[in-house]
């Protein structure tokens, strides 16, 4: 693909995104270790749809004129792409781009994610912001975050988005790893209702610091279903619906509702691999898991779901799996026993 054509197209998209109807200051999304993303929403609808799930992290930056990520909407200012339809691969990832660019187009949500790795700028453009699917509203920017986390001279510590949940206390957190349906959301929400700090139920940020790995919250939202709401009625009182119509599994906003905390970051103490079984015993139980099992729970779903297959991502996940203790969590039908098991585990791992 012609490099100058793609470069010119990125600039056209970037300038078009900045010319939205909404003017206002950028907001900072801290990612630990001094790294933060400057976000700028330039459309009213897309702001109202995507900002709430990020709001617990955002900090005003009124003096900053630029942005790292511009979130735009509409079709008027978005030119057609220079790449052919055949360039779209699995999950809308555009292949054949020059090395410095990444792009994907979600056919379902009509959202373009486009990133220039060299200038470290990204555009998220919702062509139909009024009908963004609930998964976009609950987990905004998921398409561009992995592209923007590459270490730089100023922020050399490895960071990666992982497919996993996280809960904890001030002393540390547990990362809940496993494929979809393994029980991550149930475990995370049961823990939140029992007084744990909530960080994530599906996607979290891992940050390797000199003091050890940290897990960071990305979204103040969580996936729920009717059986879960019946088992955890606090969710109805404490959570707020993600803005917009429900069009799939429900998502609740947990942050900013004046209820138990959604924490920004905690030291990571262990990997927990939830398991649900139709014939589950009443009482949950933990048992040690091998490093290989932990990597199998964490890596494939992260690599394939987040389209992040860089060698450094795999090495980082392998380091975590190889150094942190890992435990299988057989979910019991009594959710109190799940949170009791997690509490005991965190207590035993406290520094």
């Amino acid at each position, binding site marked *: 693909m012609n490099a100058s054509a793609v470069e010119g197209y990125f600039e056209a998209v970037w300038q078009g995104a900045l010319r939205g109807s909404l003017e206002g200051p950028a907001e900072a999304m801290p990612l630990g270790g001094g790294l933060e993303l400057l976000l700028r929403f330039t459309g009213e609808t897309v702001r109202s749809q995507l900002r709430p799930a990020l709001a617990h992290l955002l900090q005003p930056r009124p003096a900053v004129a630029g942005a790292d990520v511009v979130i735009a909407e509409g079709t008027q200012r978005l030119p057609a792409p220079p790449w052919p339809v055949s360039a*779209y691969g699995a*999950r809308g990832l555009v292949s054949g781009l020059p090395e410095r660019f990444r792009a994907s187009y979600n*056919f379902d949500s009509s959202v373009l994610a486009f990133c220039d790795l060299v200038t470290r700028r990204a555009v998220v453009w919702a062509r139909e912001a009024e009908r963004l699917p609930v998964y976009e509203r609950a987990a905004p920017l998921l398409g561009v975050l992995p592209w923007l986390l590459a270490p730089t001279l100023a922020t050399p510590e490895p960071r990666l988005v992982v497919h996993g949940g996280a809960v904890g206390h001030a002393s540390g957190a547990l990362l809940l790893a496993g494929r979809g349906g393994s029980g991550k959301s149930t475990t995370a929400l049961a823990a939140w209702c029992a007084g744990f700090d909530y960080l994530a139920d599906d996607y979290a940020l891992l940050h390797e610091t000199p003091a050890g790995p940290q897990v960071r919250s990305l979204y103040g939202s969580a996936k729920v279903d009717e059986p879960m709401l019946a088992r955890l009625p606090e969710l109805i009182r404490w959570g707020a619906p993600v803005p917009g119509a429900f069009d799939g599994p429900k998502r609740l906003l947990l942050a900013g509702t004046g209820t138990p905390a959604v924490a920004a970051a905690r030291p990571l103490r262990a990997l927990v691999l939830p398991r649900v079984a139709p014939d589950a015993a009443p009482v949950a139980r933990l048992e040690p898991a091998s490093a290989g099992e932990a990597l*199998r729970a964490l890596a*494939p779903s992260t690599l394939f779901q987040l389209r992040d297959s860089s*060698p450094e991502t795999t090495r980082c996940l392998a380091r975590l799996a*190889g150094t942190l203790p890992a435990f299988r969590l057989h979910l019991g039908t009594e959710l109190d026993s799940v949170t009791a098991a997690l509490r005991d585990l965190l207590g035993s791992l406290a520094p």
Partner: protein
Amino acid sequence: MPPSELEARFRVAGPQIIHETFEGGETVLIDLVSGCYFSVTGGGPALWARLVRGETCAEIVAGWPGADAEAVRGFAARCVQEKLLLPDATLTAPAPGAAGEPWAAPQMERFTDMQDLLLLDPIHEVDAAGWPRAAAPSA
């Protein structure tokens, strides 16, 4: 495995194959193209390590007391069949390795639950503005 490949040397099939070995005795292999991933246990991690450092099956059997020749060949053949290893005629014999662990039969378990994440979307049409959309289902 054809007889000609019994004396072959192998390399990891490409950057799409990720492999990590842990002290506890497991190698995890992930194929980023197919979406399959594998757990290799028993004597498998040591056998995988010897294969990817360029030893032939015959050299492995000769240098590993008690090694089961059929199991070694079978494991190498499975790795080729799963597109984890490729024969590479350009490789030469590696320097002798350190004494290995006692022989144990290799185990390999294959997982395919991630493959649906790699399925291509249906063929797309382009709308008037030049953006793709899912093809309308045929009547």
